[in-house]
């Protein structure tokens, strides 16, 4: 059975995104960006762009994106999620890699 893994990234350390990209393809990986980590969703960020190109699921906290005025700078493929959805994502996944 495929394991669902959530990379829960709240810090400005790109290593979390890199680890998620190196994660085995056997698992179903989601990268969730919160707080200042949402700046990584800027299209100019090469790691997140690469993750999107590799069809990794990338989500970002909508409130954190909006207060930073970032919405027009991020890829359409980044799913914007509300606090509600963040809670659901946490429980939907089997394991959480915090970063």
């Amino acid at each position, binding site marked *: 059975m495929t394991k669902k893994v959530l990379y*829960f990234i709240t*810090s400005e350390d790109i290593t979390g995104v890199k680890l998620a990209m190196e994660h085995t393809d056997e698992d179903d990986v989601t990268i969730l960006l919160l*707080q200042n980590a949402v700046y990584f969703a800027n299209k100019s960020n090469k790691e997140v762009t690469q993750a999107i190109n590799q069809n990794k699921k990338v989500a970002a906290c909508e409130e954190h994106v909006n207060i930073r005025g970032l919405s027009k700078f991020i890829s359409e493929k980044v799913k914007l999620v509300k*606090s*509600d959805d*963040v*809670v659901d994502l*946490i*429980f939907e996944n089997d394991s959480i890699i*915090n970063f």
Partner: protein
Amino acid sequence: MARLGILFFDGPYQAQASETVVKLANAALDKGHEVHIFCYMDAVNAVLENQKKVEGIFNIEEGFREILDKGATVRLCNLCLLVRGTVKNCLKKECGDVKRAGTPDLAKIIEETDRLVAIC
């Protein structure tokens, strides 16, 4: 319904973490989940009394009072409080299930919750 553990490290205001903790806890509680929070290092300062309300700034004390009121449990690293000199300023038990604790209590939270997130 499920049980969510939250660990964080930062004090209030300088960093966004304590505000994120309050909002995430609120969202989980409103969905009927249990929430168990462990305040480690500077995070113990997020739960101090007498944080003055300033317009435009999210008041962290009020945030914690609200989630305690909704049933969240909050554990404070006792050693972290002691070295910082803030032991006597924490929210009191009248506010809800808030207690000084040791690091083993985080182990307990990991054991007794379904998922643990760390807010850095």
